């Protein structure tokens, strides 16, 4: 593998290195009303797994909870406390092997 392959990886590339046992329902629930009026939408950029993306047409936030690394950053960063942040059910979510 060349050095270029280590460099310039996107988050999507990085996430493929991680093992998950996905739950069938989201452990992250947003208060849609608060999000509609949120001007910063910082969840969409601070998340190391890009779990949150903004849907411009509907003015809503999509939550790809399957990719969540359970770090807790969004819970603290969201200025409106709009995220009901829980851990996934026991045995679900991220499974680190070499971290």
């Amino acid at each position, binding site marked *: 593998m060349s050095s270029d392959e280590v460099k310039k990886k996107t988050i999507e590339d990085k996430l493929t290195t991680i093992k998950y046992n996905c739950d069938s329902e989201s452990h992250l629930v947003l208060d849609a009303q608060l999000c509609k009026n949120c001007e910063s939408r910082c969840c969409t950029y*601070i998340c*190391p797994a890009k779990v949150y993306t903004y849907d411009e047409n509907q003015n809503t936030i999509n939550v790809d909870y399957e990719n969540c690394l359970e770090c807790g950053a969004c819970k603290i960063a969201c200025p409106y406390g709009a995220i009901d942040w829980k851990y996934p059910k026991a045995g679900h979510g991220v499974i680190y092997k070499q971290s």
Partner: protein
Amino acid sequence: MEEFQTQRFDVIVVGAGPAGVAAAVTSARGGAKVLLVERSEIAGTKNMIGGAVFLSALKEVFPDNWHQAPLERYINKHTWSLLSDNSSVDVSCDFPLKPKSASIFRSKFDSWLVSQAKKEGVYFAPSTLVKRLIKKNGYYCGIETELERIEAKVIIIADGVNSLLACQHGFRYDYDAKDTVLSIKETVKLSKEIIEERFNITKGSNNGAARNFLGGLKSENTPFALGFMYTYSDSVSIGLGVNLEDLRRYALNPSDLLEKLKEHPVVAPLLQGGEMLEYSAHLIPEGGFKKLPKLCENGVMIAGDAAGFVNAIHFEGTNFAFISGKFAGETALAALKINDCSKRTLKLYEKKLKQSFILKDLKSYKDVMENLYSRTNSLMNYYPKKAAEFFEIFSGANCISKRDEFRNFIVNFIKDRSIRELFKDLAAFISSIFGVLK
């Protein structure tokens, strides 16, 4: 898991990291019946470290068999680098015969910790998420999992930095973004030979190296961030801890910043040819002394990251976790002995913390992070750049008279930065040093 429901325990410990395991084995060694509860199926698979475990604390909890722990490499070589855009000025130290820490993978290391705890009589409940604590008559007396309720005389909360339990039961508030560091890391596969060569490690030895990087992120709005690398047997970590408030304020993504660090001309050759094995993320609490939670209540104590026991300047966390867990275990035993688990008895835990390095260090470092943070631009941009300029003259043979070069350097040093800013830097520096020593 139902097997535990009908049993009554002396102690329940939530979280099987270093703090939880230390609390559990210490209680079990004193004869208590202990249940250790962990949400992951295999201990350590939810956890990440930069990172290295401090051996002094590991030995304190496992004096006889610590060397059997799955340690990757003994970290005896440390290099701190000030990175400017294209160069690096380093300070290094090397203690080849006196390793203080060892690099670990949490999945292997935490699993080993749990296997030792089980050998010493601790009951272990994996795949068990604690949803809340049970409180009766003003006393915490059990846990509620997804499936059942289990009771005990003492509960020890060691559920890590996010401690939903501590927040939920009012032991502390959630941390502010400015007191929180988001760390991300990549584990990168490289051959043993390449690691030994690039990090100047004796061939065939299990010695290793750690590197820290300040600056070098080439960003208009520079966040407060520290890069790190650790060597494992046949891989290395490359990661970055960034202040969460800065990420939010400057609208930055942590992974993009790490890519910048990886591209830095001093860092890139260390990673060249490597294959990414795993990406991970974790928070580090940096509120320290100013954000201490209630450390005990009737029937309950809080240890490790859950209580914010981290000294970020020295990358110390595992030692705080192991030792605070041990103190909590000892206190539980003392309380069980006199059959009084009230807050008054459990205050012994606070006393032990106060008399040890844990609260002493947190107290003396209470302003250091804030001081450094207030000088972000100096630390991340100005001084790395100036250090590079100085050594470019010092080592450059640029065919210009040294006198002119150094004069220019000094004039620019003052011109590029107002005297006021220089004084502010100096004041922050002195205040930090005095804070620690006074």
